[in-house]
């Protein structure tokens, strides 16, 4: 089957001849039928300025397809207009109806645009190309002009399509850091808290007794163990865990009980003047 067709076509191609596009012309008409722009299309050279359509204007394109040798009108199998957006690679193919006499007329009415038009969300120019293909004649492809259409909705994308591209980065907004008062205020406040010591020490220097028994063997161990308790609680604040504090406190309690008992009984003896 496949091998037969080329032979058949070879026979055809010997007779293949050229097609020509005659009197191509486009017209842009306004919504009320008034003509806005009408120009013949140059086939040899693509015009530099694009054709722009606004609002509900209509683009009408007419031309005739003729056999180049006989000049008779021809209706080829394929007469397509291709609207191609080079930026997005979106494409629309629109077949053009050609009469058996070769006359072709294409209307692009923006109030009801054909579904095949590619979406133009950014108003990128569409390259308009005419393809004429026929089994009898040589194929013909003509770049007509660039067309700028009003902005349209972008092509609908699958909801999952987003996950096939890098997604926008997300930064977490953190709560602001807690504010601290100036250290100077804290330092002054510490001074105020310690201020009573001045009064206390001042008055105490007048009335306080001299710790004459400080190094007495019955008193000193108890004072030291009280100091150890204070140190233990201070260390608890710095970094010890509760369990450790209870353990060390329990260990420390035993000597404290005995030294305390001894110290208080010796003081009691002093007070009662038993000594």
């Amino acid at each position: 089957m496949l091998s037969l067709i080329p032979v058949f076509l070879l026979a055809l191609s010997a007779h293949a001849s050229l097609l020509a596009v005659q009197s191509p012309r486009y017209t842009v008409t306004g919504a009320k039928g008034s003509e806005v722009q009408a120009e013949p299309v140059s086939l040899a050279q693509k015009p530099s300025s694009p054709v722009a359509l606004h609002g509900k204007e209509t683009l009408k394109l007419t031309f005739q397809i003729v056999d180049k040798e006989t000049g008779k009108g021809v209706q080829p199998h394929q007469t397509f207009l291709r609207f191609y957006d080079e930026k997005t690679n979106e494409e629309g193919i629109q077949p053009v109806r050609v009469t058996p006499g070769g006359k072709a007329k294409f209307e692009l009415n923006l109030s009801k645009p054909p579904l095949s038009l590619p979406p133009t969300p950014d108003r990128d120019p569409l390259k308009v190309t005419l393809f004429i293909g026929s089994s009898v004649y040589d194929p013909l492809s003509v770049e007509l002009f660039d067309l700028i259409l009003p902005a349209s909705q972008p092509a609908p994308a699958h909801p999952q399509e987003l996950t096939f591209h890098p997604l926008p980065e997300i930064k977490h907004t953190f709560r602001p850091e807690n504010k601290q008062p100036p250290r100077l205020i804290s330092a002054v406040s510490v001074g105020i808290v310690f201020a009573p010591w001045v009064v206390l020490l001042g008055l105490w220097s007048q009335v306080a007794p001299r710790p004459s028994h400080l190094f007495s063997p019955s008193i000193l161990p108890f004072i030291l163990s009280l100091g150890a308790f204070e140190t233990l609680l201070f260390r608890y604040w710095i970094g010890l865990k509760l369990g450790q504090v209870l353990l060390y406190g329990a260990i420390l309690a035993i000597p404290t009980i005995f030294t305390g008992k001894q110290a208080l009984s010796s003081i009691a003896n002093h007070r009662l003047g038993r000594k």
Partner: protein
Amino acid sequence: MFSFRRVLFLAAGLASLVGAKSSTGNSVLVVVEPKRQDDFSIFYDGLRDQGYELTFRAPKDESPPVIEYDEAKFAHVVILASETKNFAKDITPQSLISLLDLETNLILGLSTKQTPLASLAPEFSLILPPPGTPLISYFPKREESPSLIPITPSKYDATEILNKDLPPVWFSGVPHAFGNNPLLVPILHAPAESFASEVDGGSADALVDAAEKGGEGLWAGSQLGIVTGFQALNGARVTWLGGVDLLTDELAQREVSNGVKSGNAQFARNVAAWTFKESLVLRIDKIEHHLVNATGPNEVYTTNDQLVYSIYISKYDPQKATWEPYSGIKDLQLEFTMLDPHIRSSLPPVPGAPGKYSTTFRAPDRHGVFKFVVDWKRKGWTYLHSSTTVPVVPPRHDGYPRFLSAAWPYYAGAISTSMAFFLFSAIWLAGEVQHGNKRAGKAGKTE
């Protein structure tokens, strides 16, 4: 005797290791009409050179079965019988879907005839033209039939799957329009000038009428696919061929222009390499997460911790049949998710550590069950997905900042009280005697 058998086994194992060029296995079932079986010998030889073991089966044969005891019998299945309307009982659209579930890769051929495969294609979001309308193109001018088209791969085709500078590929078959499905991987598009039509008897007016009927009335232009891959979410790959003639010896040897052989043979190898998971195959080797300046992972992280997340990715190397560390992914992203992603940041490759991608970020100040999610899907590549759950908790009772300057006065007060107590105790205990004498004297007076 025993040792000889062991040597044999070892040799067989070694041979399969050397031969296995696909990442998933090297057994291939080719379902082909017996009278066309010899048409594809270049394609078969290409597969055999790659180390595949081919098994042939006529469409109506009952054996070998494609699925036995719920296990896929072959790693890959190629159905070249594209015009067959009646297959054996075990080759149905449903069984092909089951094969995909079993991660078997498929190459399926379409034709202008209405076959079970043609009715399966819409399930893969491929929209076929009506039966009997192949793709034809009068461009470029050539001696061949309009339905035998030389197609030059463009930059919009799957450049990662196909060889660079691939010569034009002869194609004869049906095109398909694409539904809106991101899992599709278009491998080769139709030329812009081509369209689907009856070869003989197709009239110009019929084309215009078809287009006016609606959006899908006319199959034309470069938005159509002719060879299209589909990668299922489980990683199984399917390639739909618009026509199996693409793989024939005749088209592989036909010249596209004087002295230039067509790219069909190379194209067939590229397509088979992608479908049978030789090329563009990645895997995640391992992931790591830990605190900055720590080495091991934590069971639990605290809000506002600085976390390090690393992922190791390998790519399959079909030449050596090994997995090699791969640092070529430029757009990997990490999400730190609790219901919604709270943080999404890029996961760049680490220079000097092949295959390692790493990022550091601060855990959000919200506690809950979070997930490190890497979900990388790109057309043609294996989908990478990794999700690791970690709880993020508020600081423990002793995890908050301490010794704040605002609290200095309170510390001073407490320390001051303690000191005063100690000082008072010491003086009261040690200095009692002097007072005791005075008091004793007073007491004596009152007595």
